């Protein structure tokens, strides 16, 4: 017999051993739970987590391509890139922006202009983006910022490529500019499926050639596959697809010629377009006044923007493309050609000009610009002296429909198709158009004044130049082209852009010759542009024009003198030279310039002299040789 104490102890021990087994069982159950969980994570869901781990560590970093350079026909740089540093602020990380800006302005120069620009860009940008405050930092500024980086949260100094337009204001409307990609640009890119190619890019062509040739200039964005740690720091590059730089543009435009044209244009407002009639190449394209495209690259500050937009001189309007003016008497050579082609007149047919024209059965007199008239006027004289009466009657004989159809053959009333966007198509009236537009029939009186390029007819300087070029080459309408060739960024091959023939107008060469002869005499004694033709060693065929300024905005702000100045007629001149084998056709439109013969024609002459003879007018500033900073 065991003692109760011992027995009790053995009972206790037995119970303890059971509990140990239960404890062991408990441990095993928990261990099995863990194993189940780990089998689930590491076998069942392995692929899922594998992918997550990969996307955790791999980041695609876009590499922005260099933008193509734009050259003039002689290889002079019109737009290129240089690298520099910008000061940008990651707004989300910066905290108190005002305090930060204050702190920054104690370190480097921050002008009110910078602040205004920053404020505007900040409103436009997304929360997570960095907003540029100051660009083109000097080395010293970069050093100061780097040294103070630890106490400037959210401040980033970024290396960036800048766009530079050495030609400045003169070519602002041709080259245009690039600007920061805004929401609308981004939507467009996404819709056209181009958004991936703009990853990491900040700028896009906004106007001018920069806009039209965006796809060629931009290049292809490259990618670096980076391994990054949890803080987003790059650890190493896994793979690389280098960016492909944008292709270069080589223009038909001649920068020196452009300079000459700008110079002779002086402070007038208006446009001048010079075209090679043998291929449509645009040799010069002046729009005055212009603006400095460099202002737009990093976002223009609101004050300057407002000033540019609200100026009564409308410097932001591309006049050769969007300025629409009555062609005035410059239409007469085309009307005269129409008369011959349509068999309405023979060259020798003459009228007696009493100084006015009246429609049959009407007492209303349509006056000639010359009181008392030009006497006996045949076709040749009608062009040389710009006789209105001759054309009043011709127009009535021709009728508006035939006039419309013939002039359309020279590109009036339609976009010329130049390689720039937002071109105006002007206005070439017809009965159908008037019915549609005003729900009114066409009146005979409207035909009369249409004969001298007044009334509804509106044309852009580009259309006038293209029409003149078509007349000069005997009937081939070439689409005006600013770009002559594209130079491939990698192969450096120049691929010419072939001239594009819009259509051909069937003209009798002897009729064209008659018109040309008359136009040559316009610049001879007795002609309306005799001043411009004096001493030219080559023959110029031209026609002056004067367009009445109808109605001026009665803005209260500008002073009397300016109002009067703005009431003056627009001066026009179209011409080509050398007359017998034309190499250049020009249209000049000088707002409020007065008479075409005295104001506009000498400008064309200077352009011809330089283009054909290499002769520069005195006082043209010598161009500084622009050295590209390279890319």
């Amino acid at each position: 017999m065991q003692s109760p104490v011992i027995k009790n102890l053995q009972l206790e021990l037995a119970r303890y051993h059971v509990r140990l087994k239960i404890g062991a069982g408990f441990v095993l159950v928990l261990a099995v739970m863990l194993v189940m969980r780990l089998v689930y994570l590491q076998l069942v869901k392995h692929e899922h987590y594998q992918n997550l781990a990969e996307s955790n560590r791999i980041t695609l970093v876009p590499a922005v391509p260099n933008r193509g350079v734009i050259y003039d026909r002689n290889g002079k740089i019109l737009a290129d890139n240089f690298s520099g540093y910008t000061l940008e602020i990651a707004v989300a990380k910066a905290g108190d922006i005002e305090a930060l800006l204050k702190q920054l302005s104690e370190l480097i120069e921050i002008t009110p202009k910078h602040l205004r620009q920053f404020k505007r860009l900040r409103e436009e940008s997304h929360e997570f983006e960095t907003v540029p405050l100051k660009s083109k930092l000097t080395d010293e500024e970069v050093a100061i910022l780097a040294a103070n980086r630890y106490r400037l949260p959210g401040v980033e100094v970024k290396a960036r490529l800048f766009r530079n337009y050495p030609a400045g204001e003169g070519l602002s409307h041709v080259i245009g500019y690039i600007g920061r990609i805004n929401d609308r640009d981004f939507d467009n890119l996404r819709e056209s499926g181009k958004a991936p190619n703009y990853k990491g890019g900040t700028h896009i062509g906004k106007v001018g050639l920069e806009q039209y040739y965006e796809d060629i200039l931009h290049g292809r964005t490259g990618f670096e596959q980076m391994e990054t740690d949890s803080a987003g720091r790059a650890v190493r590059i896994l793979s690389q697809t280098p960016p492909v730089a944008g292709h270069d543009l080589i223009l038909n435009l001649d920068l020196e010629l452009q300079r000459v044209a700008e110079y002779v244009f002086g402070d007038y407002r208006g446009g001048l377009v010079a075209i090679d009639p043998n291929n449509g190449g645009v040799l010069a394209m002046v729009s005055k006044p212009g603006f400095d495209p460099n202002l737009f690259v990093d976002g223009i500050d609101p004050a300057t923007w407002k000033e540019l937009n609200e100026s009564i001189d409308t410097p932001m309007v591309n006049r050769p493309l969007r300025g629409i003016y009555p062609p005035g008497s410059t239409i007469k050579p085309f009307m005269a050609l129409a008369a011959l082609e349509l068999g309405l007149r023979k060259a020798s047919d003459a009228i007696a000009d009493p100084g006015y024209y009246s429609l049959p059965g009407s007492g209303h007199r349509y006056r000639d610009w010359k009181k008392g008239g030009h006497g006996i006027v045949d076709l040749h004289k009608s062009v040389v002296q710009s006789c209105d009466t001759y054309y009043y009657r011709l127009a009535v004989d021709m009728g508006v429909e035939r006039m419309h159809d013939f002039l359309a053959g020279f590109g009036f009333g339609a976009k010329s198709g130049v390689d720039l966007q937002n071109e105006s198509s002007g206005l070439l009236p017809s009965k159908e158009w008037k019915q549609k537009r005003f729900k009114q029939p066409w009146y005979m009186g409207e035909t009369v004044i249409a004969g001298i390029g007044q009334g509804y007819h509106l044309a852009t300087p580009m259309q006038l130049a293209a029409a003149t070029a078509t007349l000069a080459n005997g009937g081939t309408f070439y689409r005006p082209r600013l770009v002559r060739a594209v130079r491939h960024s990698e192969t450096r091959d120049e691929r010419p852009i072939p001239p594009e023939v819009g259509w051909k107008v069937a003209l009798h060469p002897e009729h064209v010759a008659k018109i040309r002869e008359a136009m040559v005499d316009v610049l001879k004694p007795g002609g309306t542009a005799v001043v411009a033709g004096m001493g030219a060693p080559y023959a110029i065929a031209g026609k002056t024009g004067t367009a009445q300024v109808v109605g001026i905005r009665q803005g209260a702000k500008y002073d009397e003198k300016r109002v009067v100045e703005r009431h003056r007629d627009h001066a026009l001149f179209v011409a080509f030279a050398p007359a017998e084998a034309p190499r250049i056709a020009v249209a000049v439109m000088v707002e409020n310039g007065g008479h075409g013969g005295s104001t506009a024609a000498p400008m064309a002459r200077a352009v011809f002299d330089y283009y054909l003879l290499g002769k520069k007018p005195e006082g043209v500033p010598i161009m500084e040789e622009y050295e590209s900073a390279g890319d």
Partner: protein
Amino acid sequence: MNQPAIKRLMASAVRHLDGILLALLITLLAVSVAVVFSASGESGARLAGHLTNIAVAMAVLVVVANIPPHILAKLGPPLYALGLVLLVAVALFGEIRNGSRRWLPLGFTSIQPSELMKIALPLMLAWYFQRHEAALRLKHFGMAALMIAVPLLLILRQPDLGTSLLIGASGFYILFFAGLSWRIIAGLGLGGALLLPVAWNLLHDYQRERVMTLFDPMSDPLGAGYHIIQSTIAIGSGGAFGKGWLSGTQNQLDFVPERTTDFIFAVFSEEFGLLGVLLLLLLYLAIVARGLKIAEQAPSMFARLMAGAVSLNFFTYIFVNMGMVSGILPVVGVPLPLMSYGGTAMVTLMIGFGMLMSMATHRKLLKS
């Protein structure tokens, strides 16, 4: 001291070590050296620190193993009392770190008295039950429950939910092995379940958040959920065989948070895969099994209770840590035993294993 004296002392010290347990521990620690080295980004300093911790902990193990169980038992009341005093001191003068008052500044260093309690509480309880071994009644269990409740509540209001639950568990294991009746255990379980909603309301916001992120880590992927998301990605991407030592991308690229300490299991799983995890778990289970074997053969009630509780406690830490890192338990800040970097936890654990060895070897001596 002369040469033979040292030799004799060494021989006597070694006599009280349990060979099997020691071999298992050394294997585990060797693995931990490799994993800490990888998790620290191959940092020599971390490695040296870890090796130092191991050396200190091993020394403590040898010392504790040489203290006979009956003396260990006597350490219970004073250690427990000291623990309580320190916990009260923490409540009064403690340093606040990360929003909770857990550390007591001592001038030259800071200590976390709750660590001491992890050893002191079971020691105290085991001593208490041994004292009343002859006639154990319900009132003794009541008294024991009070001894658990006081430190538990003090730690709970630091606040440190994780540690208080672990200390509660260690106390419960003693009661369990002392023979707490099943009816009471069932009652406690039921009561606990009923009190859960009440407890939920008593939790701090951050604690509730941690529990909530467990169910839906993506609800706060950059905040509270980040730890769990990144550690499960690390584990899952490790797959069957792992990415290889020093090659875990989640680890090397710093995606796994706290990766040398609480989340070292994520690093281990990523680099060694399911195969490595199973082997590691087997190693842990072998240590627990050895502990339970020692408990089975323990000569006194104190030793039985202590050995059983130390073994289960050890596994509880493993389960809580692995469960937390693999996303089935809330994040409570418990290191993986003998794997994570950190001296205090390692020393505490080694004191436990020292006691196990003491119980194993002094029993044999008594027999002979």
